């Protein structure tokens, strides 16, 4: 196995790793963590592994990774032989990608938090989370619109990168928090493009592109 993932099925952050593994076509060991209702990620065993008490946690070779950006870079560097998902030698692209990796944590702290509230009843400042979530969606919409004017469909450059993988889950899951995609045409096209990627995997709330289902059967 390539790596071990401490995983929660409803977590958008865990899904980043599951999705990227699917797209890269790599197998891994998944260990289910009872995040809700059991709060197992705050248990002694897992806190010892990850003092931040967050999920996912990845055991990759001798590394214990707890930041999804680090996981995505590690996976791309190790398994993407074409170096397109993380074009390490391209200074402008990697810098732009890291910008979006940073931005993806804003999505977690806004839309992700709002979703925990509306779906799992977590105590969250919901009005602020939703308002900031809308600001984040508008920023992605603006970037994708500009990229579209240049003929591109992705956040950075001409092909999908780990920036798209990192930002996709909580944008796609926004309706779980009551933020619909209707006002964001560029986002809708982008979501469709990602759902059409070879090796795409679903999660609850993120569906398959049905027409493509039996292709290649």
């Amino acid at each position: 196995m390539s790596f071990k993932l401490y995983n929660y099925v409803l977590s958008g952050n865990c899904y980043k790793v599951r999705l990227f593994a699917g797209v890269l076509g790599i197998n891994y060991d998944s260990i289910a963590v009872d995040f809700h209702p059991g709060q197992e990620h705050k248990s002694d065993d897992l806190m010892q592994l990850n003092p931040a008490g967050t999920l996912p946690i990845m055991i990759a070779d001798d590394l214990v990774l707890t930041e999804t950006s680090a996981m995505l870079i590690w996976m791309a560097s190790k398994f993407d032989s074409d170096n397109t998902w993380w074009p390490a030698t391209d200074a402008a692209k990697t810098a732009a990608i890291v910008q979006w990796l940073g931005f993806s944590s804003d999505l977690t702290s806004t839309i992700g938090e709002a979703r925990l509230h509306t779906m799992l009843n977590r105590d969250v400042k919901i009005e602020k989370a939703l308002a900031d979530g809308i600001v984040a969606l508008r920023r992605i919409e603006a970037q994708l619109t500009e990229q579209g004017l240049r003929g591109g469909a992705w956040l950075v450059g001409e092909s999908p990168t780990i920036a798209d993988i990192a930002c996709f889950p909580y944008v796609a899951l926004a309706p779980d928090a009551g933020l619909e995609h209707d006002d964001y045409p560029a986002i809708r096209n982008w979501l469709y493009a990602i759902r059409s990627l070879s090796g795409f995997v679903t999660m609850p709330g993120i569906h398959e592109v049905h027409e493509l289902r039996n292709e290649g059967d």
Partner: protein
Amino acid sequence: MAGLERAKEDWYPIAIAGSTVDGEQLDTSLLGINITLHGDKDREISVTADGNNLPVQTRYDHVWTTFSENPRPLFDIPEADEAGRVLVPCGVVRVKCSPLRAVENFLDIAHFPFVHTDVLGAEPHTEVEPYDVKIDETIDEVIATKVKFFQPQAAKSAGDGIVTDYVYRVAAPMVSILYKTCPPKPGSQDVITLFVQPLDEETCNVWPWMALYDYENSMADMISFQQMIFVQDRSILENQLPRKLPLDPKMEIPTRADMTSIAYRRWLKRGGAIYGALTEAV
């Protein structure tokens, strides 16, 4: 409000037993009324509405309350007390839909291949074979039997695809219980329930609970499996319009596969359990 008095006669789940700590207060809502649970791990839990104590009981790993001093008895699940079963409270999932729609969706098998693709159903195995449904007047429940469906992964404990046998019980307007083939213990049935807490007519908290024979999978695996299934339904439920469940036959056209749903709607209407329902076409 239509159906509110009838709805006040039932018991509803509001928390997992033992999940609150001493002195903790949990504000929630039931039938549109604000209530507070006063947590106490060791002694009695109390629930109040507007300062008045409500009846409380703990059963099936959940804390239940009612607005009635003379409530309908809480339904019986005899399997809950069978030795050897693993009891799995799965936490709460909030859904913006009528509590009745949450129950009705749980009774439907035709959506399995499309919503729970490659788990509870798969194309091309989409046909629902005829099955039996009755409204049992003596115990006042809806019961569907002889339901059979091909499932690629019927439970966390199932390996390859199997034809799964189902029995459905609607034991109260907002409680649905299903019995299904138990892969590791032939002859026995897994029990999977949805206990629904109506926050108001168009929003509910759903508390899935299971009583399984499964000694291989971890608790986290079993909970994850059930949450995955239920949250796949959630996005569908939140997009159903109207949000309330229509009881007027003019509103929606059922097919043969919807017999359980038809019986459920008829039973609700007959019993006046119309909180969360639309009774006339709009």
